[in-house]
């Protein structure tokens, strides 16, 4: 059997294992929606200014929570579940079979991206149905590009992150300590207009803010083009490549401690 077929087959097993645990699957999808509902309840009706006109804050929160959903389903997911599989010996077990290492990791990434696509779709649908936020039409290409590049980049970074997570128990604590502050300084949960300039500048160094910016443009109802933000998407992609290089260099198939 060709190695590509082995990888494809592995995706099916990853997918099956995921849906076999309905509570975990349910909350994977419910978690970003809970944030969407809370932020809209608190601030949704405020009027905000976006390029091209004025709209409600809900229009800001849908792409913001979509960003959060992407990061959660890729980076957070892989950076916590891979060390778990590593500590259990699952990675080492695969390592002793003809399944190539890249095929296993590709299957994990592919599955994470499938979940991400579903999540962004659900967040968009929720935004349209509950809060009257226009689903992207002419800007759909921009959404898809941001989604694809963001999904790839945050999967790579999640895999790179496993190299500094010593064991599964430390995983969630380390991942949260990295990602939550980043989400706050990246215009995802709140806008940093009022914050000191250095906060905004610091946020601009990291990829979360750029993914968020790209999605904000693609969800802007006044945007006339296809919704591409090549500058922002390029920075996200660059982080993704860096993450991939680090992951390839430092990934471990055996427990670290």
């Amino acid at each position, binding site marked *: 059997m060709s190695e590509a077929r082995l990888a494809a087959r592995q995706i099916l*097993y990853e997918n*099956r*294992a995921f849906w076999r645990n309905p509570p975990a699957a349910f909350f994977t999808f419910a978690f970003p929606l809970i944030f969407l509902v809370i932020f809209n309840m608190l601030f949704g009706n405020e009027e905000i200014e976006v390029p091209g006109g004025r709209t409600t804050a809900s229009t800001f929160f849908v792409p913001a929570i979509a960003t959060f959903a992407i990061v959660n389903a890729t980076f957070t997911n892989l950076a916590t579940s891979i060390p778990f599989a590593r500590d*259990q010996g699952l990675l*080492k*077990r695969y390592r*002793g*079979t003809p399944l190539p290492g890249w095929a296993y990791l590709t299957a994990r990434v592919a599955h994470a991206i499938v979940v991400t696509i579903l999540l962004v779709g659900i967040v968009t649908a929720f935004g349209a149905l509950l809060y009257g936020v226009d689903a992207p039409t002419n800007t759909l290409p921009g959404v898809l590009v941001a989604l694809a590049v963001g999904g790839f980049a945050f999967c790579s970074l999640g895999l790179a992150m496993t190299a500094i997570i010593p064991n599964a128990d430390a995983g969630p604590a380390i991942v949260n300590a990295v990602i939550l502050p980043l989400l706050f300084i990246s215009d995802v949960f709140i806008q940093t207009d009022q914050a000191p300039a250095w906060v905004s500048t610091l946020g601009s160094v990291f990829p979360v803010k750029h993914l968020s910016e790209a999605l904000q443009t693609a969800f802007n109802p006044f945007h006339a083009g296809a919704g591409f933000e090549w500058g922002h998407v390029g920075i996200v992609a660059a982080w993704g490549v860096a993450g991939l290089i680090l992951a390839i260099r430092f990934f471990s198939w055996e427990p670290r401690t």
Partner: protein
Amino acid sequence: MSETVIEVRGLRKSYGEVEAVAGLDLTVHRGEVMALLGPNGAGKTTTVEILEGHRDRDEGEISILGHDPEERSPDLRRRVGIVLQTTGVEPYLTVGETIEQFRGFYPSPLHLDEVLEMVGLSDLRDRRVKKLSGGQQRRLDVAIGLAGNPELLFLDEPTTGFDPSARRGAWDMIRNLRSLGKTVLLTTHYMDEAQSLADRVAILVHGQIVAEGPPAILTGDGRLTTIRFRGSAEGLPPEVGEPEIDDGMVRIHTTEPTRALHVLTAWAAARGEELPELTVTKPSLEDVYLELTEGSS
């Protein structure tokens, strides 16, 4: 001699200052069950993990089915099954699905039913892996190792933590593998396991093999047999050897048990005495092992 499946010469591996494997030589032939026996820290797992390709060596020559395991050749992966000491599986898949998943990695795997049958999990085919007991989980580990129909199977402590009946079951399973002509390299720290399963045993101490051979030869050949009885050694003919007296028991260690016993029983019969609790014992593999590993752990 039959075809060589594993050939190791001068294997060395150090972790910092500690030399875990210190110049080990090992040969395993096709169809053989070879047991690596040794105390904890003797280098068993390090050795096996180097042979499996999970670890790189510092020095030495290794050939596994004609390959160097460090090259991680796909051909070798397809021909070897590995059962590690600690292993995880997807907890929410069933036993059947898990074996099926691993079967799919190999060009000519065993049939699912056949694998289930061999490890005695046929009735649990549709059970979630998460719900298996420890012993059942270990059998699933072996099933995964067998799924690809390997020529060579590595079993790292296959029965550690088993209750006695589960161990007997696992032993039957391993004997079954031998009858199928599989080559098995087994590590264990259970003497009786090595004695009952292995065609040959290699005893590993401080990263070196200190004794090697079929269990019967390790425990026979020049080793002392012990004759024991309750009573006094007073007036014992000197030709039976120097007795050891402990707690009312007389022990005589001899390389010529037949002659010693003949003299002893003639001596007792002449005095019209019985020799209470008379026993003659060959050393067990455990005695040989303890003698060889004395002071090492």
